[in-house]
């Protein structure tokens, strides 16, 4: 195994499905073991890709178990937003009232002085 063969060994798991390029590609053309290695990696990537379409059957009763474990109904988005609006509005009223009181108090003190 020469330096180029070692470089191929490092490159193939890195490039994935892409082809090796440049001097490495030229080397593969002339080296039978490397050509075989490229082919084996290519087959491996194709088989991994194919797994995406393979499905395995969930155990019987799986969907029923999911539905039994759902718990309370999910809160719809608009209700969730409404829930947040009330405390936010209340906080805004309190903050405005506090600021107004502070200003009035300062004016009263300035006036008294």
């Amino acid at each position, binding site marked *: 195994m020469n330096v180029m063969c070692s470089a191929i060994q490092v490159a193939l798991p890195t490039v994935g499905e892409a082809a090796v390029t440049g001097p490495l590609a030229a080397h593969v053309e002339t080296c039978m073991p490397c050509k075989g290695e490229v082919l084996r990696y290519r087959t491996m990537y194709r088989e991994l890709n194919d797994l995406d*379409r393979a499905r395995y059957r969930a155990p019987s009763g799986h969907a029923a178990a999911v539905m039994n474990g759902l718990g309370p109904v999910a809160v719809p988005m608009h209700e969730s937003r409404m829930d947040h609006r009330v405390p936010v509005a209340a906080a805004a009223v309190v903050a405005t009232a506090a600021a107004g009181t502070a200003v009035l108090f300062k004016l009263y003190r300035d006036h008294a002085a």
Partner: protein
Amino acid sequence: MERERVESLQPQELIEKAKLGDRDAFGQLVARHQHEVFTLAVRLMRDRDLAADVSQDAFVRAWRAMPKFRGDAKFSTWMHRITVNTAWTHRAKHKRVRLDPLDSLASEPEAATLDPVRAGEAASASPTIEAALMQLSFSIRSVVVLKDVYGWSHSEIAEHLDISVTAAKVRLHRGRKELRHLLDGLQDGAQ
């Protein structure tokens, strides 16, 4: 009658109804996606019982998060993300109960006995590659599965597995190399 009506709905209609808390609509989504989610869970957990727990938990999490589903990604992609996060949580919990430092050496025969749901498709996928995948450690296998089977990007993998992009790349490189050698061993053994 109501169930029949829900069964005939398009995916987008089911999602909209489920977002509003419609259990029948969500049940239909579960029925349509359960095998796909279970398959991913098996590939991550390497154990049929754990995978069933993970996929059930993933659907429960999805139900709770339905109002937040914006539809930027497909429902199946969203479910995959939730499944990966759930598997990660289960894995951490499981690790606390049963320490398994030699994870990479353990092999679960369970996965080899799974029944393919669509015989034609599953038959086209190599049982050898599935068996080889199951021999990788969880941390390596999850990266290889998400990248080379489900086509996730390095950054998506890094984000969902809570690792750096560099770590994801390093694990992927190591995983592919290990897988390549495992395949040699399995094919030699089969001959």
